[in-house]
Structure formats: structure tokens, C-alpha cells
């Protein structure tokens, strides 16, 4: 197992904030919109340096999505910022008609996704957003795994022409990907090469997959770990290559098991290469109030859950 270390912990939303600020410096067409959550989305640096390119919309997310769509018509690259719940479910029809169907170059940037939002509870902990967004034709869906990857992804989507959903979160987690990484939309990152089981993880679950990989190594199991940061378009080639080698797969995501990364992988495997799969995901449930760590344990998203899933799926190899 390749050794991963970290020297600091940061939140992925701060990676977004840093990426947005850098995007503002690199391209004068970048504009940012926020629905009364500037601090939570870490947009302060952008607003300080580019006040004329920031639009405070107030608590009116539907209007924000429409305004963003309109801004693209004048050649702008709008980044909208609010919580994942209010970036997707609340404004699904606005995104569907004014952005996705209209092919608008809007970057929907969503913080506080998943259970790790913590104490605010289920009203704010969306676990369905990946599914909602990946079903929209032409929508790119990205869920980066740490501060550096989120910053790199924010810059990469600036250069991509078309609608994007960028999902990140609130908790501080290890920063373990390189600072100078090249982020390629739709290209998986090989975290660790192995032969016994493929572990595919996205977002906050990637570090947990690494911790699980270390435990599996102690048990004599050689896990291949792949980071799928881009859920759509899915890097089918990388997944198939790995699963053909290992013969089984565990998918890990901080999302409902319905509609998430796991189902995208299952669709691929059933059509291209049959192999057993286990899902480390939320089991069709809403979240609740507690600390992020308590919730990840209760909803079975811990490294130990990944280890158990890997052991189980290996026994089911065809």
C-alpha cells in the first residue's frame, strides 16, 4: 500500500474559495453569485478583489440560477454558491430548463454536501444531489476529495465550456493530494494499485478509502484504490481496467446508495463486465443532527465499513 501522509487538515469549501479567487485573477469573465452564504462558501477573497464581478442575490436561489444563465449570454462564466441542498433540489427546474436544456456555461458550486455538514441536521444534509444532477443531460458532476483537488477542480471547470455541478463540503479533512496537481475532468486518479479488490471512492470518502486500504494491507489484502472525482462523465476505461484485474468492486460515497456513484459503476459493470459490487453509501435515509464523525459511523461510512465491504465482495467473486 502506497503511503499517504498529510501535514494539515482543511475544508474542501476553502479549496473552492481559493480556486474561485484564482479563477477571478485568471479570467475577467468569471463572475460569482451567492445566496446569502458568502462566509460559508469562502467567497470573501473573490469579493474583496473583484467586487464588481460579485452578485449578492439574497435568499433567492431560483432567481440566482436564472441570473447565472442570463450572465452566460453576455459571455460571463458564472459560479453560483450556496449549500448543496439549495443548489440542487430547491432549484431543480431552474437548472433543468434555464441552464442544462439551454446549454448554459454555469458552474453550480455546492458546499455542505452530505452528512458531514453535521449538527444542522437532515434539512440541510442533502444525500440525493449527485443523482439529481447526473440525470440531467450534458451536466458534468464533480465531487473532489480534499482542499487541493477542490481548488484544482474549480480552475478546471472555469476552462470547460458547459454546465457543471461541483460538490464539496464543510468539515476539515486531510490534505493529501499534490498542490500542483493537474485536474482533468472525467479522468480517474489511481490512488493505489492493487490486485485483490477495487475500491472506488469520491469526495470525503477517498481519505477513508486510503485508511481502509491500510487496514486491508495488514490483513493481507491488496486493494486497488481509485479516486473518481468526476462522477459524470465517468472514467469507464479506468474502472473496467481495474475491475477486470481484481474481479470485484466496492464503491464509497457520502450519498444515498440510490442515484449516486455506485449506481453509475453498477450500470457500467452490468453492461460491460460482470463483477460483484458492494455499496458503502447511505442506505436510503435522511441524515440527522450530530457531529460529522458520529454520523459517518452511524450511517456506516467509516473505514471499517469499507474493509467489511471489501472482505464481503471478495467472497462473491465470479
Amino acid at each position, binding site marked *: 500500500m502506497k503511503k499517504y501522509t498529510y501535514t494539515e487538515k482543511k475544508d474542501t469549501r476553502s479549496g473552492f474559495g481559493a480556486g474561485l479567487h484564482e479563477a477571478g485573477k485568471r479570467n475577467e469573465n468569471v*463572475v460569482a453569485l451567492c445566496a446569502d452564504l458568502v462566509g460559508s462558501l469562502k467567497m470573501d477573497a473573490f469579493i474583496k478583489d473583484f467586487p464588481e464581478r460579485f452578485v449578492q*442575490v439574497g435568499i433567492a436561489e*431560483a432567481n440566482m440560477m436564472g*441570473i447565472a*444563465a442570463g450572465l452566460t*449570454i*453576455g459571455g*460571463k462564466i458564472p459560479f453560483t454558491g450556496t449549500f448543496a441542498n439549495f443548489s440542487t433540489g430547491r432549484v431543480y427546474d431552474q437548472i433543468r*430548463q434555464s441552464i442544462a436544456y439551454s446549454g448554459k456555461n454555469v458552474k453550480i458550486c455546492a458546499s455542505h454536501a452530505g452528512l458531514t455538514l453535521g449538527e444542522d441536521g437532515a434539512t440541510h444534509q442533502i444525500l440525493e444531489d449527485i443523482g439529481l444532477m447526473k440525470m440531467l443531460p450534458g451536466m458534468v458532476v464533480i465531487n473532489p476529495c480534499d482542499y487541493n483537488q477542490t481548488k484544482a477542480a474549480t480552475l478546471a471547470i472555469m476552462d470547460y465550456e458547459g454546465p457543471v455541478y461541483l460538490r464539496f463540503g464543510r468539515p476539515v479533512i486531510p490534505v493529501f493530494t499534490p498542490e500542483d496537481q493537474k485536474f482533468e475532468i472525467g479522468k480517474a486518479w489511481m490512488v493505489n494499485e492493487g490486485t485483490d479488490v477495487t475500491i472506488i471512492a469520491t469526495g470525503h470518502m477517498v481519505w477513508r478509502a486510503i485508511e481502509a486500504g491500510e487496514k486491508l494491507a495488514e490483513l493481507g489484502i491488496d486493494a486497488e484504490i481509485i479516486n473518481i472525482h468526476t462522477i459524470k462523465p465517468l472514467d469507464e476505461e479506468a474502472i473496467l481496467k481495474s475491475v477486470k484485474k481484481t474481479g470485484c468492486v466496492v464503491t464509497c460515497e457520502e450519498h444515498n446508495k440510490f442515484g449516486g456513484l455506485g449506481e453509475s459503476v453498477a450500470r457500467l459493470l452490468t453492461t460491460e463486465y460482470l463483477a460483484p459490487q458492494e455499496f458503502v453509501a447511505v442506505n436510503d435515509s435522511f441524515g440527522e443532527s450530530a457531529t460529522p464523525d458520529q454520523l459517518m459511523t452511524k450511517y456506516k461510512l467509516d473505514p471499517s465499513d469499507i474493509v467489511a465491504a471489501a472482505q464481503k465482495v471478495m467472497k462473491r467473486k465470479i
Partner: protein
Amino acid sequence: MKHTISELEDIASQVRRDCLRMVHAVQSGHPGASLGCADFFTALYFEVLNHNTAFTMEGAGEDLFFLSNGHISPVWYSVLARSGYFDVSELATFRKLDTRLQGHPTTHEGLPGIRVASGSLGQGLSVAIGAALAKKLNGDKSIIYTLMGDGELQEGQNWEALMFAPFHKVDNIIASVDYNGQQIDGPTEKVLSLENLQAKFEVFGWHVITSDGNDMAEIVKALHYAKSLTGKGKPILNLMSTQMGYGVDFMVGTHKWHGSAPSDAQLELALNQLKETAGDY
């Protein structure tokens, strides 16, 4: 004036014929408010709008128009074709397989003149405001025009947008409301009353003007006046009274023709009331 009022009225008559023939041909679509807004669209595209029929999405240096109540697509398609965005013969493809003239307007099929999809109601004003902000950022002095239905104002997103524009001094937008008092299930006052719309818009901070959208001379004058009000710190709202079905005696003033197509006999009766002035497509 690029055209006389009489010339504009003649164009509007042809546009009304187009709308009825398009809807009749596929026995679906929304003739009522298409007829009611034929004068507005004609005035806008043939007299008021500074636009280029060699279409670009950005429309730099041009005025842009957004239709929020996308179901009145027949009147928009007719006016776009008649003003030169595409050949009028394409109107015959309305709502048919592989057409660019979808039931509701879309950018998806690449029809010149369309900049965003609409149909799901209440979204157009927000998009128009975004386009207006982009014009300002680009130092482009052009004006953004938009049209909403009155029933559509029951959608909450409109009120988010109505609150936003005055606060942010979006004074390069002229939003018109097709104030016909009708919606699918009946008169707006019976479905969900809009009450005093003018007062509502004014208290939100818009500069409100009123007009008769079925009087060509008046609507041209109103739109020119609205244009003179831009750049003064307030968005402009043209509360435009129209009659659904205007121009055809048995269709006028009722919601019954909101989304119903005329029969062969009804089409003939209707076309007999509308002069063919520029040749049917």
C-alpha cells in the same frame, strides 16, 4: 419610425394568420395569447428593437428579447421568421418531428433568435436580469426586453426577480406583462387574483407604465417611452393590457382558446377576419 402604424398593423395581421395556421396544422399549441401579443411582438421586432437577424448568442451591441411565457411560441416564431431570422416556410414545421420550432422555445435545436429555453413558467425575468447585468459588465448600452404572462406571476421566482432588479439598479431592462386576465383554468381573478399589480410593482421599486397592447400606435409609443426611461436607476415595467384571442371575434376575451386549436371550419372563419398582407407561408 421605420414603418407606419398601418404597415405594422398589416404585419401583425399576417402574424396572426401564421399563428392560427401553425396551431391548426398540428392541432396543438396556444393561439389565445399568441393572438393577444401579436401587436406587441410586431412593434418590438419591426420598430423598437435594435437587433441583427444574423444571430449570435451574445448579441453584443444589440438589444435582446427574452420570452418567459414560452407557450406563446407561435407568435414569436412568426415574428422571428417575418423579420428575417429564418425562412417563413419553416413555420410549417412547428411542433413536428425534428423541428427547430419546438412546442416551447429552446436553444437546443439552434433556432436563431432564441437565447434560453422557456415554458416552465416564472424563469424568464431572472434570465433577462442576468443578461442585463452582463450588458452592464461589458459596457454595452443596449437594452434587455422581456415578456411575462400575467398568470405566470403566480410563480414565486418572479417576485425574487422583481425584488432583485430595483435593489441592484438594473435600469437597462424593460419587462412587459401580458395583462390579459386569463389563464388555463379561467380568469386570473377566479384562479388566484393578482389584485393591484401596478401597485405591487411600484412598491417593489419598478418604474411602471401602462399601455394598451392591442393598439399598435399606443404600444409603439409606450415602448419608445419605456426606452427613454432606461439608464435612470430603475428597471421599467410595462403593464400591458391585451385581450386573449384579439383579432378573431369568436376567440377574443376568453381563456377557452388558451391552449386549444381551431377546427378546419373555425380556421376558415378566423382567417376571413385577418387580412393576408405578406403572403401565407
